[in-house]
């Protein structure tokens, strides 16, 4: 079984985003960039499938600037076998990402595509579902458990009321939620080994995908800030406040 894991290079989750003064976006100059955390979970899940003997090959794909090569190398160090980098310096919207991934999937013919449920920069939560639609294949989104058996994959999903389990025929698309697994740290020998794993570079034009944006970003602004209120001295004072609010 072949597994494809698309990954995105994003602002590291520990870095507080700063809105640019001209309101054109988030300042990404000289800040730490990392693999999107949900994508890291996707890589981990694919590598575990390989370690269990379910998957034979794990291919990671990234669409982004040349520096996304570092992100792909980190996934190779976790245990992925080879990488495809689709280079573009432009911001690519989820729909165009899904179209590129569809073209990759048609070439690679994977049995499973595992994606992060959303990127922590644009928070769109779209690519996995869009890819499933374009390939006309089933989707198991927000997965907290994945089991492959007998030509099907059973996915437990984190939904609003609790958990839901669905069974999908293969090939299928899965998007990961937080509790699917805890990604490993790559060991130093594996980081060294990753440097010699195959990585091919492509462009969106190689896949005949038009990446021009459909959405215009009018502006990006700081959210309204809440200001700190009052501190009360004790529980009695808190109860007075609760009564004023009509809660107690």
């Amino acid at each position, binding site marked *: 079984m072949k597994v494809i894991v698309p990954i995105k290079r994003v602002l590291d989750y520990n870095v507080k*985003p700063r*809105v640019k003064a001209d309101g054109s976006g*988030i300042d990404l100059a000289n800040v730490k960039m990392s693999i999107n955390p949900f994508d890291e979970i996707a890589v981990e899940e694919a590598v575990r499938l390989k370690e269990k003997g379910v998957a034979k090959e794990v291919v990671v794909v990234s669409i982004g600037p040349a520096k996304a090569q570092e992100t792909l190398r980190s996934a190779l160090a976790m245990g992925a076998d080879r990488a495809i980098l689709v280079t573009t310096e432009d911001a690519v919207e*989820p*729909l165009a990402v*899904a179209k590129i991934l569809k073209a990759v999937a048609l070439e690679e013919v994977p049995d499973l595509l595992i994606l992060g449920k959303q990127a922590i*920069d644009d*928070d769109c939560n*779209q*690519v996995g*579902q*869009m*890819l*499933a*639609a*374009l390939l006309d294949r*089933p*989707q198991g*989104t*927000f997965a907290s458990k994945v089991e492959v058996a007998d030509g099907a994959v*059973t996915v437990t999903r*984190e*939904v*609003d*009321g*609790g*958990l*839901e*389990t*669905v*069974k*999908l*025929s293969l090939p299928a698309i899965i998007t990961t939620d*937080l*509790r699917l697994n805890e990604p490993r740290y790559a060991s130093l020998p594996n980081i060294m080994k990753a440097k010699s794993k195959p990585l091919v570079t492509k462009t969106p034009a190689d896949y005949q995908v038009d990446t021009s*944006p*459909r*959405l*215009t*970003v*009018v502006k*990006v*602004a*700081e*959210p309204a800030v*809440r200001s*700190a*209120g*009052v*501190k*009360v001295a*004790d*529980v*009695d004072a*808190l*109860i007075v406040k*609760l009564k004023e*609010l009509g*809660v*107690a």
Partner: protein
Amino acid sequence: MRVLVWAEHDNVALKDTTLSAVTAAAKLGEVHLLVAGAGINEVASQAAQITGVARVLTADDAAYAHGLAENVAPLIVGLMGRYEAFVAPATTTGKNITPRVAATLDVAQISEILSVEGPKTFTRPIYAGNAIATVKSRDDRLVITVRGTGFAKALASGGTAVIEAVTSTGDAGQSSFVRAEIARNERPELTSAKVIVSGGRALKDAETFAATILPLADKLGAGVGASRAAVDAGYVPNDYQVGQTGKIVAPEVYIAVGISGAIQHLAGMKDSKIIIAINKDADAPIFQVADIGLVADLFTAVPELIAKL
């Protein structure tokens, strides 16, 4: 403009998140609600009573009972010949289905809008709510999910919409529902609760969480939430999680107990009308957003509060 809105329901009752989506959709044009499910007559009649809904489309088929995206998306796409926009609440169901519709229609989806700024212009949070982007669509049609906390709820009564049955597109044969483990409790649902009591990692373990937070919630008739740390530590199930990666809530009163106030948690509750924090660390970030703060050990303060309420 005519707008098709996804009605969120459990085949028995309409969910409140639908009402916020109706409010958002009404800013764009005439609102038609799609009720897709199995045995949905009661849901359809509830939908028809919502103020501002002109028409209710029903698709009653076992294939739609669990909202499987593979089955539901073709239904919506088939109906979109009559509409200029599709709007769904940003629930896990809405988030699952909507991009599938958008991609099939070759439209860029606009996720989790907070406001409607113009016929094709919307605001939406990015970077976990650390920034708000204003975006304008260049597509002919709109496909949108709505963050419920951004819009007032439409009135659930007063409307007299026409109910129209539409043809089912059937089962796509790609996926099947196996089971659901949906927590059943008597407490209000987080996304519609007026008061929420949330606990954090300071609650130590599942037993202590239950013994401390639940009696307070019961006393106040409140919904119960938790920080990601508390969920990851196994104190409560994942559907209790309030935050960027959990539920986004905006109750009248949010009481954070033993929650430090990580950015990821604040992203899920900072739109609450009043935030109350109980934490023994006076420097905890939660106090920077709290309207009312009590610096105290929760293990003495909460029982005292319950006793005196």
